[in-house]
């Protein structure tokens, strides 16, 4: 029966209460551990297509008559357009339409960040469009940009109201402490740099019907926002994304380029592709904002935390959102007195966007480094300090749906015990050490999400749902879940996704929510199909339905008898069995979180400041693991990105003008295969018995969260130096080493 309930929805740490209609979640969870298909390694269903270059990404799509768009973007951080002449562009070869401020709501003559769109051209080829953009005549009035986040906060220039969180009394907690440590940490601005740049193709049909082919993490979100902005019926907007080349949080919405493309397509009556170049990608598609974190911690001599305080400044940019940088301080440790204040500075820099665990990546760096500085002052083992401050119950009085952080610590112990051996391998100027950091994050997903399962006369099943696979292996995980429920081998289940016109509503692929949101809906649809198959089999073989089940591609009777599924399904002829399923509600009044710990081993050359990460052991608790092979890949990928975040990546701007200096991939330095340490992955793999019919949480984000702090703590272990700013470039490493020497000789 459909029920109307009020539920808490959480995406990337932002909670909202909404009414949702949900189906009853009646299926019992499967037993823990590997099953027949679920819980076992599975190769990607679409691996061959992707590897052979056959998979059609948005970048590969082309339509008859399709035009290409190019965008004029502000070269200045803050400027006014005094005069704009689009005529030279209109007269350029191949040009079919030109739009400027007033024509599309995202085009402006008052740009407030570098890269903000001002005008756009559609032409027969991309080269022609780009050449025409160069011909546009602009007279700019340059204005003084606001670039300093502290100054913005002082002037009250914020993107939203500050977030404050408080429990207990911070001052009292500090007064009760035997030891107090205080430090300022800084994290840099980071760029997503998805390999496929942001892009879409807009194509109008009939009267007021729009097709949007787009590289996106949220088909239904694009549909909703485009329909709302353009005043269309949502069902008249079809959004398609069959394959996409990475998002990491930056592709959750339609983006400026889709609105620009839609207008140019309307004016020309032709499909228009608006694809960003790499340089535009690094200007105008979002970023992980820089942070300043002023932190304090107090503890008793035995390590009991008495106070945690954090004043966080998020350098958000011209718009965007102020992430929960203080989230880890709020959620990770038992401490009676906690105060968090987060301010989101509004600056003349490109807007931020969610980037894989926004806020928690940055906040965990600060908090977990501070914990190690505290451990050093207390002369306590860092792992023991974390154990002693384990949070057994949520401070707001909610129980955890499941929490196995202590088990993560237990599994981490053998990696932590390598400490003496690693240190002993220090040699000459190369010092070695080990550090660890804990992880907390959301990742429970939520309703609504729907799936259909179709079974034909050939005894094969197809999962149909309008979700997207952003490269995380969603097709594979969903096929595994359906195969398990239907008792079919994996190669007899396919998944059709990626088209809002060809399947029901599906969750965003962000906030580590795909598996926990979609998986239960797919299982419930498969169970509905299985029930119908058994009803037919009961009649076909004159059995009671309750003695029948589906196993290994057969209908099996408890009281003897086994028939290939095909022999039942062949009765269908052209008929089909259609199962439907919905995601049930999240457990009422419970906190659904993911947990983990990582142990990093580093080598530091104290003469040159070079840092090498040699080994990372990652232990994560995300409930049931559906595909261990894909899950290990997720963890490794998160750690690889985190190593880039920690050691080499940084978006640099000119401190005077605000111009983005790192627009190319030689300037913005991402990790290569040569930078990768040994990575060891372990999962607790205990289903969350309170969460859905699956017991799985999300894994996309947890592995990127603790790595930076684990590396920084390993650097301290190796050298005694406190690195408090990422990236830990050679300059920062040498600065920290000099400070250490200064402190020792003072």
């Amino acid at each position: 029966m459909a029920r109307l309930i009020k539920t808490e929805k959480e995406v990337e740490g932002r909670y909202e209460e909404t009414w949702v209609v949900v189906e009853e979640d009646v299926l019992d969870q499967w037993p823990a551990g590997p099953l027949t298909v679920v819980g076992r390694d599975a190769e990607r269903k679409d691996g061959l297509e992707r590897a052979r270059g056959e998979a059609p990404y948005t970048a590969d799509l082309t339509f008859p008559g399709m035009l290409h768009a190019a965008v004029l973007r502000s070269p200045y951080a803050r400027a006014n357009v005094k005069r704009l002449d689009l005529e030279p562009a209109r007269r350029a070869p191949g040009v079919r339409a030109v739009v400027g401020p007033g024509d599309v709501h995202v085009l402006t003559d008052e740009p407030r960040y570098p890269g903000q769109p001002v005008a756009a051209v559609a032409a027969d080829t991309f080269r022609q469009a780009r050449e025409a953009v160069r011909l546009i005549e602009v007279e700019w009035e340059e204005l003084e940009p606001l670039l300093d986040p502290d100054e913005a906060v002082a002037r009250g220039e914020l993107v939203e109201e500050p977030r404050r969180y408080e429990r207990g009394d911070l001052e009292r907690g500090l007064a009760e402490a035997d030891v107090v440590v205080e430090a300022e940490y800084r994290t840099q601005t980071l760029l997503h740099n998805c390999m496929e740049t942001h892009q879409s193709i807009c194509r109008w049909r009939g009267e007021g019907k729009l097709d949007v082919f787009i590289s996106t993490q949220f088909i239904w979100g694009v549909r909703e926002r485009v329909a709302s902005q353009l005043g269309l019926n949502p069902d008249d907007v079809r959004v398609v994304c069959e394959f996409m080349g990475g998002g990491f949080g930056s592709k959750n919405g339609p983006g400026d380029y889709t609105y620009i493309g839609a207008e140019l397509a309307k004016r020309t009556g032709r499909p228009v592709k608006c694809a960003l170049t790499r340089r535009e990608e690094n200007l105008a598609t979002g970023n992980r904002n820089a942070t300043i974190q002023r932190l304090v911690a107090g503890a008793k001599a035995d390590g009991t935390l008495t106070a945690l305080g954090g004043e966080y400044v998020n350098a958000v940019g011209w718009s965007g959102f102020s992430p929960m940088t203080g989230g880890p301080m709020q959620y990770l440790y038992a401490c009676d007195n906690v105060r968090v204040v987060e301010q989101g500075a509004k600056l003349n820099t490109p807007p931020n966007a969610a980037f894989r665990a926004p806020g928690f990546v940055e906040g965990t760096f600060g908090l977990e480094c501070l914990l190690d500085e505290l451990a050093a002052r207390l002369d306590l083992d860092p792992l023991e300090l974390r154990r002693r401050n384990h949070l057994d119950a949520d401070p707001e009085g909610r129980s955890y749906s499941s929490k196995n952080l202590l088990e993560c610590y237990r599994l981490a112990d053998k990696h932590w015990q390598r400490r003496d051996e690693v240190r002993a391998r220090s040699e000459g100027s190369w010092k070695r050490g080990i550090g660890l950091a804990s992880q907390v994050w959301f990742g429970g997903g939520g309703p609504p999400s729907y799936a259909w399962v179709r079974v034909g006369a050939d005894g094969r099943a197809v999962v149909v749902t309008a979700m997207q696979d952003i490269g995380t292996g969603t097709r594979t995980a969903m096929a595994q879940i359906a195969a398990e429920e239907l008792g079919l081998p994996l190669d007899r289940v396919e998944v059709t996704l990626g088209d809002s016109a060809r399947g029901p509503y599906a969750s965003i692929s962000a906030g580590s929510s795909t598996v926990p949101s979609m998986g239960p809906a797919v299982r419930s649809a498969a169970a509905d199909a299985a029930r119908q198959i058994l009803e037919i089999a009961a009649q076909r073989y004159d059995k009671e339905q309750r003695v029948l089940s589906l196993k290994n591609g057969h209908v099996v009777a408890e009281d003897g008898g086994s028939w290939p599924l095909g022999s039942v399904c062949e009765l269908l002829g052209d008929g089909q069995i259609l199962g439907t399923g919905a995601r049930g509600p999240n457990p009422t009044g419970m906190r659904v979180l993911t947990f983990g710990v990582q142990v990093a081993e580093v080598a530091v050359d104290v003469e040159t400041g070079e840092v090498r990460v040699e080994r990372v052991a990652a232990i994560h608790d995300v409930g049931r693991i559906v595909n261990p092979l894909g899950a290990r890949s997720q963890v490794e990928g998160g750690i690889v990105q985190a190593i880039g975040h920690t050691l080499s990546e940084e978006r640099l701007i000119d401190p005077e003008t605000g111009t983005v200096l790192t627009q190319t991939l030689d300037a913005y330095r991402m990790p290569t295969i040569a930078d990768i340490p040994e990575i060891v992955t372990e999962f607790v793999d205990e289903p969350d018995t309170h969460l859905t019919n699956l017991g799985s949480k999300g894994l996309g984000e947890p592995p990127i969260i603790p790595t930076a702090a684990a590396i920084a703590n390993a650097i301290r272990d190796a050298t005694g130096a406190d690195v408090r700013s990422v990236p830990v470039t050679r300059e920062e490493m040498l600065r920290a080493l000099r400070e250490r020497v200064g402190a020792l000789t003072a």
Partner: protein
Amino acid sequence: MTTELTVNGQTYASRAEVGATLLETLRGELGLTGTKIACGEGHCGACTVLLGGVPVLSCITLVHTVGDREVTTIEGLRDHPLVHSFVRADALQCGFCTPGQIVSAAALVEAVPEPSRDEIRHHMAGNICRCGAYPRIEEAILTWRD
């Protein structure tokens, strides 16, 4: 004016304008979209193809400099054992860089059939994978003949 190109054993008469890149010609004119564009200025390796067996960045190779050298793209390597070893080892996530990775790796194993980890890391360092599939890419190349 047309230019003759040999791609994956097939001959094409290209009408590419002077200044067109090999990548634009392959993707736009020939419809071989397996070769990807990710940066367009020679920094990431996603557009890697073989030119006379040598890996080159097709986004910064002018099509008129190709001459009579045979071009091999991912479409010409669709049955290469590396394709299967990449899938087996889960050496791809979003898959956008993967054709370029496999083309680069094909040149490596052609020259060094049993590459060491160091040789793989040296040879493959020009192919960026933002999803971070590197540990699996290394494994896929180590096990390409299994």
